C-alpha cells in the first residue's frame, strides 16, 4: 500500500533562519506531488506542485522554493524565514489529476 511520510511534525525556527521540510512517498511511482500551507483561520493554499523529477510549478510568489530530486521525494525550502511563513505545511500526492489527494501528517512551523 502507499504511504506518505512528512517530517518533522513540529518546528520552531527564528526569523532569518533556513528551512528544509522533506516528504517521501512509498508504494507508488511517478506520483504528482504537492505542498500546501494552512494558515490560522485560512483554507489550504497550494504552494508548489510537481509532475516529475526536477519539474516544479509555483503557485504563489513567496519566500519559499521546492525541489524534487527523486521520483518520490519532495522538499520545501527557504533561505531566510519570515514571520509570515508560520503555518501548517502539508505534503500530498495523487496518481493523476483526476483522483484524490493523499496528505501527510503535516509540519507545524512557528517562526519566532
Amino acid at each position, binding site marked *: 500500500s502507499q504511504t506518505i511520510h512528512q517530517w518533522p511534525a513540529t518546528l520552531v525556527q527564528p526569523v532569518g533562519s533556513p528551512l528544509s521540510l522533506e516528504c517521501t512517498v512509498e508504494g507508488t511511482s511517478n506520483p504528482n506531488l*504537492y505542498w500546501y500551507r494552512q494558515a490560522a483561520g485560512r*483554507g489550504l493554499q497550494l504552494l508548489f506542485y510537481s509532475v516529475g523529477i526536477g519539474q516544479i510549478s509555483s503557485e504563489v510568489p513567496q519566500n519559499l522554493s521546492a525541489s524534487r530530486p527523486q521520483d518520490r521525494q519532495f522538499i520545501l525550502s527557504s533561505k531566510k524565514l519570515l514571520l509570515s511563513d508560520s503555518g501548517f505545511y502539508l505534503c500530498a500526492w495523487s496518481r493523476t489529476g483526476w483522483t484524490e489527494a493523499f496528505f501527510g501528517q503535516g509540519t507545524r512551523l512557528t517562526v519566532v
Partner: protein
Amino acid sequence: SQKIEQNSEALNIQEGKTATLTCNYTNYSPAYLQWYRQDPGRGPVFLLLIRENEKEKRKERLKVTFDTTLKQSLFHITASQPADSATYLCALPKVAGGGADGLTFGKGTHLIIQP
C-alpha cells in the same frame, strides 16, 4: 479566479440526526468536486469525489450531491455520531477540466455532533 464558499461557522447537530454541509463555488465549471475530512493537527483525509455528470454519490453514511446549475454541492452525513465531529473541506480542481495542477480548497465547516 475560482472562489469556494463553505459555511465557516460551526455546525452543531444532535447525534443520530443528518448533518448537511454546503459548498458553493463561482467563476468556473469544474469537472469534479471532492470532499475531505480534517481532524485537529492532522492532514485532510479524502472522503468522496463526484464528477460533473453525476448528480449524487454515496458511501456508507455519506452522500454528496453536485448541482452544476446552482454551482453547489451538498454533503450529508446520516445517523451522525460524535466521532463524525471534524472539519469538512470542499475541494475543486484548480483547472476546470482537472489536471495535475492541484486543488483549491474551501475554508471548511467545523461539524460538532453532540451526544
